[in-house]
């Protein structure tokens, strides 16, 4: 009991961004390609502060998917970081590259457009996210609490690279405190 409490305290001491960074590192995900977003900033900063990672931004999310696909074929695991609106630009590329060739793409998506959104454009784009993932048979796990975070992130990374089926980790405002 005491041990469990200590574990919990240690976990609680880390921010969601640090927990995700550590899980990526533990699973050998070195390449981080992103189109930035305010919610993702603490994760991007935590990753860029750690020399283990090679992290950089692209002009479009499609490019980022191409880069991690090429890197994986050449032996390097990667992840794509984007906002909800980024995923909405990707169905053609996801269907015709990772799905077609069975190349695993791990995606981390900051969920914009729900739970207090002020921009109608963002709110409507958000409604496309889960149907897009569903239509390609991709799992999308919504991350809402620190407590389950490492478990879901760690297991999802392992499943993506174990099965070669792409999946998304969705950062809910419940986790990120909803600062758009």
């Amino acid at each position, binding site marked *: 009991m005491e041990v469990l409490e200590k574990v919990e305290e240690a976990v609680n001491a880390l921010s969601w961004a640090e927990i995700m960074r550590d899980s990526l590192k533990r699973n050998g995900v070195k390449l981080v390609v992103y189109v930035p977003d305010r919610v993702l900033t603490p994760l991007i900063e935590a990753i860029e502060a750690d020399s283990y990672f090679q992290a950089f931004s692209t002009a479009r999310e499609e490019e980022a998917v191409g880069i991690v696909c090429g890197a994986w074929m050449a032996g390097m695991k990667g992840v794509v970081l984007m906002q909800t609106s980024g995923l909405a630009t990707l169905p*053609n590329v996801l269907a015709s590259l990772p799905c077609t060739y069975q190349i695993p793409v791990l995606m981390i998506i900051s969920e914009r457009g729900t739970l207090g959104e002020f921009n109608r454009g963002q709110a409507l784009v958000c409604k496309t996210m889960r149907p897009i993932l569903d239509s390609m048979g991709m799992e999308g796990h919504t991350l809402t609490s620190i407590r389950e975070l490492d478990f879901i992130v760690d297991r999802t990374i392992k499943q993506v690279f174990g099965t070669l089926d792409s999946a998304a980790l969705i950062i809910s405002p419940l986790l990120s405190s909803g600062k758009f």
Partner: protein
Amino acid sequence: MSVEVMNRYDATVRLRARLGDEDAVIGGIGNTNFDLWAAGPRNLNFYMLGSMGLAVPIALGVALAQPGRRVIALEGDGSILMQLGCLSTLAKMAPGNLGTIIMDNGCYQITGSQPTGTAFGTDVEAVANACGLAHTATVATEAALDAALDRFWQIEAPWVIVVKIDSEPPRGTTERDPLRIRMRFMDALTLA
């Protein structure tokens, strides 16, 4: 624009002859890909079946993961126009092992030869320069292509060659089994 142009298949054969056994090629979709196949299939060629515009990004991923291997991205003008931002990313990352060749016939030949922006003055080499890529050339003859490849082949910086080509149809059709393409490519990347 010079009226003299090259033939895509002939240009691809010249490129293929220059490739070393360990050099990887990412073939963008369309007739560029068909002539890459027709010029002689190689295990270290990755033949795209969709994701138009992503030859340079896929090649960048391979180049970053295996910095000791030369990687060539082969695209068409229509494809690169769809993803011009990747030239900015390429300039930023500046891999020393990645070259890009763009076959430019000024049209979407495979869909009915509708003209692209390059037929109206868009200069892909100038776009590359403006993105920050310094090592570039536009060539329209075999001698000029050979000279550009001689100049760039050993440099440790990204380079871009735009090849002005005619509108001859491709000489073959790429095999379309994605898993075979991917597994042959990956095996070759691991072994070579």
